[in-house]
């Protein structure tokens, strides 16, 4: 079994300030890790993912996340947020095996960027 914990349900931050959205997971097997973003009235979009290799992964819009196996974390960071980053962010995990594996989602963190 696996689980994902996002401790912060809401994170307000001023524009151009840095932000960190926290994600911790538990699993008895190796995992793939994901961050999805959901803009208002839209579906989920993949922001970034960790499958293997470098523990630091980046998205095209300036977000990055670091896989920390010892702390079972996959926190999402951005050094300077924009108004357009206002959205809900979901951390997710799946077993790292071939073929489809069930994805487990966290409860989400609403990022509110304040002008």
């Amino acid at each position, binding site marked *: 079994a696996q689980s994902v914990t996002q401790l912060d349900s809401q994170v307000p931050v001023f524009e151009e300030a840095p932000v960190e959205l926290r994600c911790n997971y538990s699993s008895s097997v190796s995992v*793939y890790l994901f961050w999805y973003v959901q803009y208002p009235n839209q579906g989920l979009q993949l922001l970034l993912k960790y499958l293997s290799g470098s523990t630091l992964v980046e998205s095209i819009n300036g977000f990055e996340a670091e896989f920390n196996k010892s702390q079972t974390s996959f926190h999402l960071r951005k050094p300077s947020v924009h108004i357009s980053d206002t959205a809900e962010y979901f951390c997710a995990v*799946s077993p790292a095996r071939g073929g489809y594996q069930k994805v487990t989602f966290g*409860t989400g963190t609403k990022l509110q960027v304040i002008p």
Partner: protein
Amino acid sequence: SAVISQKPSRDICQRGTSLTIQCQVDSQVTMMFWYRQQPGQSLTLIATANQGSEATYESGFVIDKFPISRPNLTFSTLTVSNMSPEDSSIYLCSVEVPGTSEAFFGQGTRLTVV
């Protein structure tokens, strides 16, 4: 990647009625998934739909309440039957593109039961 179209995008329904949600994918996929996102909660997998076989339901979800059809490799429907206000949620269709380890989602159907 995959582009997923869901219909309707939102609906307001009377309790006791049923609503069928459609999910169309722009490419052939083996597995399609239906999720529920209740207010303030995370996504919960309802069932996995494979073409040509019955859907596999997760614990707490039953076929009588959420019948699913999967007539071909690009289309699926989820019906929410005999609705009650507790069924008010966002329902999301999802697919996994082989070899990507990534799930793609439709924009969701926002259902309100009154």
